[in-house]
């Protein structure tokens, strides 16, 4: 199975995208629409999205000095500024400072949230203890050099910075799962628990698709916490996608920190592919699928352990897991499911209640379940291009923030917030190229992107019908935690 690259999906971030020759006085560098920087409290650069770290050292020094002047003159750290249509956000955290600038119109809150994600990404690679201890002992410490020793740090952070513009995980703080029958997911999770029994100090096992959706995950029985924090899983998925893409068919065993679980400690992540047998997927010989693409006929698997010497055990566990899942046919089903996104056009008619006719008002939706730490994000309508997707992601971010800020009863008409029930808040926003309907209930949130011509009545009716269908189908949409 091969798929053409979708213009509505974020491209893989590679070293070429970094334009390492650029520096902060370079015209091309200045024209880049979104920059992300990490630097120490000494003003020394640790990482930059574009250009070389040394090439942005003047800017890092300036930003650090601005923070110091602000703290001295006004008693507080500079958190943001707006200059010439470009917004700057700055986040001081311990001995590190993170900064981003954008001319895409994100709110200050959105950019600050982006910086929190970048900080998690940096900690995942070098640990908080690594940063704080090293810089406390030696303020001259070169964090950039430390990052260079981490596994594919540039690609991991570059991909994270890119995905912030595209992916709903970073908006809703919840991860996404592969849509698959609950029994299949349960079978895979059970097999994972069994496989981990042969691994020293296992922490968790995750199966994942190439787009970063979680197929299944399992923790050893009796372990606390019983789940992985959503924020850890989101940054882990970003890390695993990069490692899996770069390693291809090769397995790897790398240091990784889960900042929410323990920001001060490294664990080891064994990453490999699980290949479905041809016979299960296509009714052939019963041999593992041979493919020119690592992802074809396979899914990613990651075993996390606290033992630095467990690579061979993880390798054996992976082999056993692949055999077991191929024997009972679950792997082929999981692989097939991981290759499918939730296309609105393929949803059953009852999900849309007859509203999705030739006019196709629904372009995209997100169904968020904070209590489950997961959300469903449909495939974007083929009528949308990459710029539309990024605009919709920004719209979700601003709407999500404003919905969180909205308290009590809200007004009932027009483009503003609309109250339709005791436990719900609804907002319908008309924008130039699309409209967004947001509905926040007691234990769920749903966000619909619709054609701008869609009436409020149609949008709300469609939303209600879709909500009911999604609620009924949750077992196949979400990982059971």
């Amino acid at each position, binding site marked *: 199975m091969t798929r053409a690259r979708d213009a509505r999906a974020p491209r893989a971030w590679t070293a070429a995208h970094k334009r390492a020759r650029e520096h902060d006085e370079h015209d091309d560098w200045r024209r880049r629409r979104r920059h992300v920087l990490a630097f*120490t*409290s*000494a*003003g*020394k*650069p640790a990482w930059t999205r574009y250009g070389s*770290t*040394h090439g942005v*050292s*003047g800017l*890092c*020094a*300036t930003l*650090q*000095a601005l*923070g*110091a*002047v602000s*703290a*001295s003159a006004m008693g507080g750290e500079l958190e943001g500024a707006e200059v010439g249509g470009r917004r700057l956000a700055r986040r001081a955290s311990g001995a590190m400072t993170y900064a981003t600038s954008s001319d895409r119109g994100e709110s200050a809150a959105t950019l600050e949230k982006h910086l929190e994600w970048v900080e998690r990404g940096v900690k995942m690679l*070098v*640990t908080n*203890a*690594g940063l704080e*201890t*090293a810089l406390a*002992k*030696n*303020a*001259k*410490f*070169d964090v*950039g050099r*430390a990052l260079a*020793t981490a596994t594919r740090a540039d690609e991991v952070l570059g991909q994270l910075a890119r995905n912030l513009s595209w992916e709903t995980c970073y908006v809703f703080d919840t991860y996404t799962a592969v849509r698959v029958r609950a029994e299949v997911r349960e079978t895979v999770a059970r097999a994972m*628990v069994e496989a*981990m*029994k042969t691994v020293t*100090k*296992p*922490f968790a096992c995750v199966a994942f698709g190439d787009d970063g959706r979680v197929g299944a995950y399992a923790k*050893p*029985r*009796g*372990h*606390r*916490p019983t789940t992985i924090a959503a924020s850890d899983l989101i940054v882990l998925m970003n890390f695993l996608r990069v490692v899996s893409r770069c390693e291809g068919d090769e397995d790897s065993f790398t*240091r990784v920190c889960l900042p929410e*679980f*323990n920001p*001060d*400690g*490294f*664990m*080891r992540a064994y990453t490999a592919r699980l290949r479905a047998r041809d016979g299960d997927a296509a009714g052939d010989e019963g041999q593992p699928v041979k493919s020119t693409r690592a992802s074809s006929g396979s899914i990613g698997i990651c075993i996390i352990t*606290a*033992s*630095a010497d467990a690579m061979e055990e993880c390798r054996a566990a992976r082999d056993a897991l692949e055999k077991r899942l191929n024997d009972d046919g679950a792997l082929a089903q999981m692989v097939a499911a991981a290759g499918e996104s939730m296309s609105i056009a393929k949803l059953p008619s009852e999900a849309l209640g007859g509203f999705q006719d030739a006019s196709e008002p629904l372009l995209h939706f997100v169904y968020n379940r904070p209590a489950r730490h997961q959300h469903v994000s449909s495939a974007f309508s083929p009528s949308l291009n990459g710029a539309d997707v990024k605009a919709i992601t920004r719209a979700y971010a601003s709407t999500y923030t404003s919905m969180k800020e909205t308290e009590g009863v809200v007004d009932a008409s027009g483009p503003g917030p609309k109250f339709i029930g005791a436990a719900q808040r609804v907002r319908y926003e008309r924008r130039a190229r699309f409209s967004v309907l947001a509905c926040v209930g007691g234990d769920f949130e749903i966000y619909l992107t619709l054609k701008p011509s869609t009436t409020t009545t149609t949008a709300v009716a469609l939303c209600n019908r879709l909500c009911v269908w999604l609620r009924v189908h949750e077992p196949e949409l979400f990982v059971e935690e």
Partner: protein
Amino acid sequence: MASRRTLLKVIILGDSGVGKTSLMAQYVNNKFSKQYKATIGADFMTKEIVIDDTVVTLQIWDTAGQERFQSLGVSFYRGADCVMCVYDVNSAKSFESLENWRNEFLVQASPSDPEKFPVVVVGNKIDVEDGKDSKRVISEKKAKSWCTSKGGLMHFECSAKEDINVDAAFEAVARFAVQNEDAEEDVYLPDTVSIDTRGAAPSSGCC
């Protein structure tokens, strides 16, 4: 061919008007302006040079000499790799202030070994000819003697205006800092493996 890269934070200190900004501008841009404009807070420039087998990026922090900006010292001095203390050879007061600038830096930056921390002393404005309004008051001998008394600080006499000895002073700063960097023990990231710190359950029932 250079085999490694490093970034050095260079702090330029000294009284207001001694020519700190001019030295930096001459070194980085080969430019000199006769017009005096006081630095507000700090100014920054970078320059890449090669020292032996190392590509060195100098991140130069040109600080304000005026009293009102000196509260910013701690945050500006943090993580400095070397410091250039500048005085005006025609101003006794600026030379006398060197002691304070150096001490203040060592107190606020708290380097691990203050005695060995790279400090270079630069006497600027040697181009100014003796006249009615100006007269050289700090001889090279006097300055070198003071540097010797402080543990053998490196000393240069320069002219930012005439581009005399400016490159040599900055390159000496860089070389000094690179040597100091080599001598300093690097701090390596911990390779901590931790899984039980958040209360892993008792082993019963666990694999």
